[in-house]
């Protein structure tokens, strides 16, 4: 059978969020090996001495100052609950990231208390926030058992795909 780039993308995305160190897939002549862990110096470092062609050849280095204003606040957003950052992350903390791009909400509706706050215990299936895309609400679960140690995103603001939202420490 044919294994095309789309299939590879599907495999890689299915593995996203799965805890593995070594993954091997063999189908006929095809062999895919994925390993996770410390960076291995396998690929040569990209040459930084390439010539700069007329329009576009070398990576632009500096980014112009981004002063794009965030969009108008969501009309239903309550007084914005800002990120809570009590301390440095512990070594066993897990970072929960946004599964999709959208607007981050910490509570079910404006005025309600947040799903979780720093210090709250969570189970794997505890809903910790919602991400809204054009009126479609997607609940996000903790995915780990533990205690919320940090809230990394601001209520009512746009979060990107895979942007860190919460840190969860080990259950005490």
């Amino acid at each position, binding site marked *: 059978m044919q294994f095309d*780039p*789309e299939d*590879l*993308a*599907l495999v*890689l*995305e299915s593995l*996203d969020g799965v805890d593995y160190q070594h993954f091997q897939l063999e189908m006929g002549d095809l062999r895919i090996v994925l390993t996770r862990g410390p960076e291995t110096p396998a*690929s*040569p*470092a*990209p*040459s930084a001495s*390439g*010539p700069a*062609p*007329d*329009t*576009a*050849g*070398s*990576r*632009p*280095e500096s*980014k*112009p100052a*981004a*002063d*794009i*204003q*965030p*969009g*108008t606040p969501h009309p239903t957003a309550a007084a914005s609950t800002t990120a809570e950052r009590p301390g440095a992350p512990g070594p066993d903390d897990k970072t929960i990231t946004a599964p*999709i*791009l*959208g*607007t981050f909400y910490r509570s079910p509706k404006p005025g309600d208390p947040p799903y979780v706050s720093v210090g709250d215990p969570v189970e794997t299936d505890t809903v910790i926030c919602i991400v*809204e*895309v*054009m009126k*479609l609400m997607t609940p996000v679960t903790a995915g780990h058992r533990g205690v919320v140690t940090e809230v990394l995103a601001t209520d009512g*603001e*746009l979060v*990107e*795909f*895979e*942007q860190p939202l919460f840190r969860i420490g080990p259950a005490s």
Partner: protein
Amino acid sequence: MTAVVFVANRGEIALRILTACRGLGLRTVLGVSAADRDSMPAALADRTVVLGGARADRSYLAQDTVLAAALGTGCTAIHPGYGFLSENAAFAEACAANGLTFIGPSPQALRRLGDKIEARELAESLGVPVSPGGTAVSPEEVHRLAESIGYPLLIKAAHGGGGKGMKLVTGPEELTSAWQVASGEALAAFGHGAVFMERFVERARHVEVQILGDRHGGRLHVGERDCTVQYRYQKVIEESASEGLTPEDRRVLTESALRIAAELDYVGLGTVEFLFDESTGAISFLEVNPRLQVEHPVTEAATGIDLVREQIQACLGEPLSFKQSDVVFRGHAVECRITAQDPARGLAPSPGTLRRWRPPRRGGLRLDSHMYEGYRFPPFYDALMGKLVAWGEDRARAIDLMSDALAEFEIEGFPTSLGLLRRIVADPDFRANRIHTNWLTERLENEAHS
């Protein structure tokens, strides 16, 4: 209020659009997939947001995600580039419903042009030459229509385009099954099973007219491009102008294109594609691409007009900055598409890590590319690495410059079309302009079989 432009695309065209916006003093936000976080356009945009996973349906094609990203970052307009959402009427409508300016023609125009059967009928109703063809329902009607067109003929998907899903039928015995297969494939690929047939022109040139319109009734053409060098209906080399055309041919082409533009109240950039039958000299309408085109730089090189700048301004409500009489063609421009495709394997995609990328450095060249050494060319999207454009006082000199430029170009890391392009520009048939749309395909398939 100054517009803030959301760029819903990737690769070289995202760079091109970002550069044009910067030239206009407009701020930009780029939406990328997780695979394009470290891309060159991501470094150039004022702000970059990650839309979703690598697969296009989770990022560049995810309409609601693109809208949410544009609205959430304070953008007022969306530039869709080419491909992805650029020809999607429903998306253009959703932009308007959310107060975003879609940088392209109206949803109505997109809808009429997206259905190739309707586009053919539109062209025909305006007196634009159309090849014999049409559609039918019952097998008897299909056969009767085919007889009236004559064999060989092509079956095409009404909602396809760009040569995707076409079937060549050489005789009546193949017709019924080809019609059914084409319809099934069209349904699977485009969500619509409608197909139609058209006379197959064996020895044709592909000639297209660039049109541009504003929101004040201003409409003009920016000349023609010749995209006859194709491999299985995918363009490989484009030129401006099309050297074989007579002034009368050119008049028919441009007047036809402008009639279509007027009927649709066309805003922004569009390309009206035609086939020019080498044996009879007949011109026939093919389709309209209602968006910025990959090969727009050859027109820019031959006219000095910044098409993307004009497109953005026109869609934002500015009148066109020049008149038809200001469009002056000078010299000849040739564009080669450098792609991550392996000529030794039927131009199959060949992504990998780009170890060496040393473009030629000479006057008269332009390179639109998002490549850099060390770039990991992702396998998820189209194979375009860059477009090299050479300009000369005439066709021969433009090709000479292109030939030297391709010889100097160093690319290593994975197979590319570079070697094939070098061969084409050195080929006596290409240099003498004795080519047709099946020329390259036939040549490569003959080589593969021998």
